[in-house]
């Protein structure tokens, strides 16, 4: 077998340029094909010892009882011809076999289930890791896409800022307009108020002056005459009222 392998490796060196290095022919005894999955159950066995294929092999010729007859015949032959000698070891073997078979029959399935459970747990843990990794990766991809979408909205920020600037400028401009108008109006109103004040002061002054001159022009002689006239008028009035009353 080694000679066979070495001759083939010579061939491979010669064909090195023709075949890709990763697919060299027959460089190892392992096949590069994927390993087929292990079968669920092991080979079927009858009585824990004899494979089922043996019974199937003899079935066409000897039917169902064939292998049993063969077994019985062989056993009887070995006992009678003393090819197998019965001694104390036989009884030891028989007792041990009894105990072993009893133990396996009683505890076999539960031990098998326990071992299977251990394996299941390992596989489940690995599966969990895998699922977690996959969900977190998909989540990560989604988050990145969302962030990209968010970044795309950056122009809105700058539009808002420019709008703010424009609004501030417009506000400022309008304020200036208003200020100018108000100031001019205030000055004109001030002039008018000033004029009104002047006129009022002149009026009051004139009135006061006329009053003062009139009062000062009343001479004592005129005062006496006016008082006498008032008294006479009062007397006349008194007479007329007395008469009526």
């Amino acid at each position: 077998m080694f000679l066979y392998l070495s001759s083939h490796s010579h061939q491979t060196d010669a064909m090195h340029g023709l075949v890709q290095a990763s697919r060299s022919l027959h460089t190892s005894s392992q096949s590069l094909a994927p390993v087929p999955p292990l079968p669920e159950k092991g080979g079927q066995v009858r009585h824990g010892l004899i494979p089922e294929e043996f019974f199937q092999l003899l079935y066409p010729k000897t039917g169902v009882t064939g292998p049993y007859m063969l077994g019985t015949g062989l056993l009887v032959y070995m006992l009678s011809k003393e090819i197998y000698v019965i001694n104390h070891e036989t009884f030891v073997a028989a007792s041990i076999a009894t105990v072993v078979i009893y133990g396996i029959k009683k505890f076999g399935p539960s031990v098998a289930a326990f071992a299977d459970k251990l394996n299941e747990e390992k596989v489940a843990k690995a599966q969990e890791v895998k699922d977690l990794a996959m969900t977190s990766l998909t989540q990560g991809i989604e988050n990145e896409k969302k962030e990209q979408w968010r970044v795309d909205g950056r122009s809105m920020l700058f539009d808002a800022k420019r709008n703010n600037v424009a609004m501030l400028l417009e506000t400022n401009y309008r304020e200036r307009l208003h200020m100018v108008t108000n100031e001019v109006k205030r000055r004109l109103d001030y002039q008018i108020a000033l004029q009104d004040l002047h006129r009022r002061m002149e009026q009051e002054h004139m009135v006061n002056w006329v009053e003062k001159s009139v009062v000062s022009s009343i001479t004592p002689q005129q005062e006496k005459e006016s008082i006498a006239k008032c008294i006479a008028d009062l007397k006349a009035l008194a007479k007329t009222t007395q008469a009526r009353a």
Partner: protein
Amino acid sequence: MAGRRVALKAIDWVAFAERVPPNQRSMFNALKTRTDGIAAKLASLPETPATIDWSYYKTAVAKAGMVDEFEKKFKALQIPEPVDTQTNAINAQEVEANKSAAAYIEASKGRIAKYEQQLAKFQNMIPFDQMTIEDLNDTFPETKLDKVKHPYWPHKPIADL
């Protein structure tokens, strides 16, 4: 004095709010309140100022020529428009932001590619119950037992069991 106005670009605040990431929300709120304040102030000012009734003033003010002079000067007055100093700064900021955004998007795309690569590896993996130990070590190199460093079973420090 004519008032001129560049049209203000309509901003969809709802869509804008959606795009703001949670850690910048306070900044967004501050911007919005500021903008609303400015807009309210603008709306409170009328577009044109109140007109001055020159004829009334001509009759009312006694000083000759004062009103005429005022009127002439008022009509001739040009109020300078305020100078815009910030728009250039904003445009420069926008250019910078575009650059950094492009860089971020590139980096993000790289990250997405990496994630997708790992995702493809997980999706194309053979199921665990069909793997051998060699397959497991190929798929997850961290499970490979270092038989050179720890030549005796269990080939890893006892603490790692």
